[in-house]
């Protein structure tokens, strides 16, 4: 069954209160929690238990793929597809293939980083409920928000609102779907 609201959003004035609130919300047992801030705050990530992500692995795969592509492409073209005999020198002249192998490693890794970032973050997101909160536009300016989502097992429209209010936010708002 679909919850009547997306979640409850509390607004804070500064990063310190946001980090403290995030920690208390986690301690209370909530897990479907997201913080919104105008810049990255390491303490908030720690409070929400965000430690690792899969991006480095994706980038590693991209890099390996790029390196193999670069080298094998040159090998195929220089040795098999279009061999040129230059005074009897070896066709598989690997030292001269290093540069393009390196460049394609970097290119594929960078593309993997960007696509991986967008993929892991689910961007582009044409619609997201948090934007229904009128003051949420301030999240990209100078305000800090904490949202407990309705799909959290501990979520209760009333009790969670009371709990969030006890964290001294500026205000607590319901987030419509």
């Amino acid at each position, binding site marked *: 069954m679909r919850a009547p609201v997306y979640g409850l959003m509390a607004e804070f004035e500064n990063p310190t209160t946001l980090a403290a609130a995030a920690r208390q919300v986690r301690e209370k047992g909530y897990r479907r929690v997201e913080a919104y801030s105008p810049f990255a705050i390491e303490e908030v990530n720690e409070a929400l238990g965000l430690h690792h992500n899969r991006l480095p692995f994706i980038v590693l795969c991209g890099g390996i793929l790029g390196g193999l592509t670069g080298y094998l492409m040159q090998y195929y073209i220089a040795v098999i597809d279009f061999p040129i005999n230059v005074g009897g020198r070896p066709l598989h002249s690997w030292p001269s293939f290093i540069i393009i192998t390196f460049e394609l490693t970097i290119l594929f890794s*960078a593309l993997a980083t960007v696509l991986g970032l967008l993929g892991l*973050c689910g961007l582009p997101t044409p619609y997201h409920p948090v934007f229904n909160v009128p003051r949420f536009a301030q999240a990209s300016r100078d305000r800090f928000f904490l949202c407990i989502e309705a799909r959290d097992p501990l979520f209760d429209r009333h009790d969670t609102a009371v709990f969030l209010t006890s964290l001294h936010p500026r205000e607590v708002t319901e987030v419509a779907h």
Partner: protein
Amino acid sequence: MGEDQRNQVSVQPGRPTLIAPGHTFASVTDKISSIVLTRRTPLFWFVPFLIASALVMVFLAAVAYLFIRGVGIWGIKVPVMWGWAITNFVWWIGIGHAGTLISAILLLLRQSWRNSINRFAEAMTLFAVACAGMFPLLHLGRPWLFYWLFPYPNSMGVQPQFRSPLVWDVFAVSTYATVSALFWFIGLIPDLATLRDRARNRWARATYGILAMGWRGAASHWQKYETASLLLAGLATPLVLSVHTVVSFDFTVAIVPGWHSTIFPPYFVAGAIYSGFAMVLVLAIPLRAMYGLEDLITMRHLDNMAKVMLATGEIVAYSYLFEAFISWYSGNRFEIFSMWNRMTGPYAPTYWLLIFCNLVFPQLLWWKKIRTNIVWLFVMSLDILLGMWLERYVIIVVSLSRDFVPSSWGYYWPTIWDVATYVGTIGLFFFLFFLFIRSMPMISIFEVRTLLPQAEVTEGVEK
């Protein structure tokens, strides 16, 4: 990024802060975004923009004539077939290097002062690479067949020669352009979200909204975003060093006296950063005055950039001296002649002007009074840009004009079309740059926020 960087502001009370005191998250956001979101375009934007547009017209005329008549309209003739085109290519691509150095290498080194200059320096990189890319393409003779440079299955039955540095260059420069653009765009996303949320104009809101792709500053996104920034910085760092190394291979792999030298790769990279920082200063000094950004791009930023210029300038000076010493010490008569020809031959004035611009005059940067005087810094930057252009001119034209056999010597002189194409790309560069500062935040808003003392989490919340 993060904790250490932010702490720097408060931990060192003796040093001037990076951002003038009194700013809040809201004030830096409003200040930087209002430059873009204002309805009125200021007059001081229009005047340089119109001049740049006129130069773009000159560029288009020069290119159109080139398409009609071919590269013969330039001064290139045997034995100097590279001339201004390749000089300009190396000059422009070198300028781009400072942007990547600021955005990538200084990020990895946790130099938080970079936060207020990295955005427009990266934009400068993109536009400089765009201008650079023009020259080898136009120099091809048949620019419309440029895609033959890439390997692809074709009915002609031929493929690129991967043992040639010129093919390496194609891959290095196109990778560099792509990665710079990606890095720049990823860095823009949070600020595009800010503009989306602050724009009142419906079209502006929709445009920035589409570009921001629904960024909402979620902690789980920020965490991946920081990882991505570090990874891209880590990838761009070896890339930027490799690009000018590969450009220098265009010369060193050939056996032309004056080119065939192992010192070229580090010397080219240092020279690239040298001229790049000069261009950053040429852009930053008027911009901060025009838009009143002195509290975000402070004297400390200019001083730091001048120090980087001084340091790379010394590497370049060392390379010049060693280049001369090695050509004498090699005992190779062609090498010795090549250097002697630079100093006393028909192009001697360009060599000595280059030595003055790059080696003598910049020594004034040792004095803090010069480094913190914006007029001196501006003049110094223009001097270095000129000096670095002359360096490439001397390397290319002087070396090619007199190589091994005197009967094949020649003399090169540019034509009006060389000048028009070069000045045209300068116009293109500023044209793109002024469009950028009108439509995108020229200072990274979210990174400047992290420099404010308020950005620090003050109470212990670690565990």
